[in-house]
């Protein structure tokens, strides 16, 4: 169970743009690996080269001993894919989709019920895919990717365009995915998703990998200050400045915020003044790392 993926110096150019520009990384067997980046960063193209949909113009990909672009059935039987779009046969029910995909992989018919159970679609088994909600479609397409119990799974933005409830619901499905030692590679542009699901994350932009580490290490590496927010009117701005020492204080209508690298000192003083009601402390998240690396300006 599980496979090792090694990508080295991957390059893919479309016209003048280098969509992927020298990407190298390895994914260990059983690892949950995330490719993170803004739209157009080159995540999907990178994933397509790893899956074998595109042959790299330069560099190599190996999944165990296989070169995926050769599309060898022996590898494809061990590989599950969920593409960006919901790729289904028209006008078939959830059960029929699973049966059809199952038979492409030579899977016994009983697997369909197991998968419906696993992704919580038992009561939607006889509903046509056109009539499923966005979240149900994504769960079904993940079930289709897992129908043959693959050793490695590729997920391309599985939670794109889902509402927050549906996303969290889907995370529950995804989180258990590599419990059995399966290797999982996921692309996303949601930081929280990568933080919750991935063992390691590669942050990509403009076709290059900018950082690659565990989410926690990336956040620590940012060495970002902590934001301590107080409900308005708890203490005066003057008091806050006094407590903060030299650290910046921002007084807004909704909150009074102290940004500091010495949270324990600030919090102790606030506790001494009995000003902890309605207080919130926020450390850096992967989103901060991401914005730090890729810039904050809006890109259309």
């Amino acid at each position: 169970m599980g496979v090792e993926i090694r990508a080295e110096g991957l390059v893919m150019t479309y016209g003048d743009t280098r969509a992927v520009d020298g990407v190298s990384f390895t994914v260990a067997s059983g690892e949950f690996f995330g490719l993170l980046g803004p739209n157009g960063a080159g995540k999907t193209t990178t994933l397509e080269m790893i899956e074998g949909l595109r042959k790299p113009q330069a560099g190599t990909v190996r999944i165990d001993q296989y070169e995926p672009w050769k599309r060898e059935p022996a590898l494809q039987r061990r590989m599950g894919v969920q593409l960006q779009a919901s790729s289904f046969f028209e006008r078939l029910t959830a059960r029929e989709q699973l049966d059809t995909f199952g038979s492409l992989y030579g899977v016994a018919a009983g697997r369909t019920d197991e998968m419906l159970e696993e992704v919580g679609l038992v009561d939607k088994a006889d509903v046509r895919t056109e009539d499923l909600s966005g979240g149900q479609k994504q769960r079904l397409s993940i079930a289709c990717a897992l129908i043959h119990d693959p050793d490695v799974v590729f997920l391309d933005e599985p939670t794109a365009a889902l509402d927050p409830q549906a996303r969290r619901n889907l995370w529950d499905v995804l989180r258990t995915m590599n419990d059995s030692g399966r290797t999982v590679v996921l692309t996303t542009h949601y930081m929280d998703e990568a933080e919750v699901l991935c063992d390691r994350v590669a942050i990509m932009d403009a076709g290059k990998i900018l950082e690659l580490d565990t989410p926690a290490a990336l956040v620590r590496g940012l060495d970002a200050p902590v934001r301590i927010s107080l409900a308005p009117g708890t203490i005066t701005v003057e008091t806050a400045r006094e407590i903060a020492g030299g650290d910046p204080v921002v007084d807004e209508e909704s909150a009074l915020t102290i940004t500091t690298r010495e949270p324990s000192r600030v919090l102790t003083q606030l506790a001494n003044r009995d000003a902890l009601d309605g207080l919130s402390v926020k450390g850096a998240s992967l989103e901060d790392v991401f914005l730090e690396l890729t810039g904050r300006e809006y890109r259309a």
Partner: protein
Amino acid sequence: MRPLRSLATAMLKGYFRDRMALFFSIIFPLMFLVLFGGIFTDDGASKADVIQIGHVAILDDAPKEAKAAYAKSLGIHKSTDEAAALRKVKKGDADALITQKGDTLVLHFSRADPVKAAELQGQFQAIVQAANIAVTGQPPKFNVTTQQVEDESLSAIQFYTPSLLGWAIAAGATFGAAANLVVWRKNGLLRRLRLAPVRTSSVVLARVAVSLAIALMQAAIFIGIGKAFFGLQLTGWWPMIIPLLVAGTLAFMSIGLFAGAISKTEEAAIGISNFVVLPMAFLSGSFFSLDGAPGWIATVGKLLPLKHLNEGMLDTMVRGDGPSSAVMPIVFLLGFAVVVTAIASRFFRWDD
């Protein structure tokens, strides 16, 4: 085998659940069959409506056999109001007015329908000539008998069943292949299948099998309805339509493949298919016989797969020709399929 079979099953289920596809590939062409089969039941010739004013000896005193003969093509009503009858002819409510002035028969007609006018004049000339000969008491020296060159059984339904069936198959196979290709490319299923341990040939063969099944079903329904309700008569070698249908379906699928390969959206693919199939059906004589059409239409028809399919089916299914008459159409259709598929594959993309 199993992937091929399950892909074909999935496609076939999708087709039967698509009410629009079912309507346009089966119900719509059948509506034409019922319409044309019903309109042209007795070879188009309808009775001429003639108003007779006063006594016309030649008609009224004719022997029984003669009366029965002209009653087949003439519907004669008597009237006394000559002015009103003339108005009716002018307005086209009646085809002619006949009176007798002395020994002269006077026929009023309208040129609005020149064919009918000429027919009526000829008919009355003949009636008068026959009466003149009868007066002499001599048997006529010269006689004429007529013989139609076409098989006399080629009534409307005999012509329309193969011709409209050809159109139905062309539409079904073209639209099916075009829509299938665009939808699967757009929703990513083509890419998804590329990453499954399925050969591309299995995917293509599954689509071919489904299109063939649909074509055979169309043929069964058309022939069944033609026989059951319109007196369709099949001639000896009619099973030769099966290889003809197979070759025709492949040719039309190649058109659909081309339409699907160059289209970005399903709407565009259907539009291009329509743009090809409908004029092709007209120029191939699916809706009416092109025997009297100008030569250039026949020349264009020679390049169209549907024309070859229609001719092959007419020859074997209703004209009573031997199986060899299907050979050339099959060769042309297969050749067409190979050439157009080769062109389509140059435009083919796995994804957008």
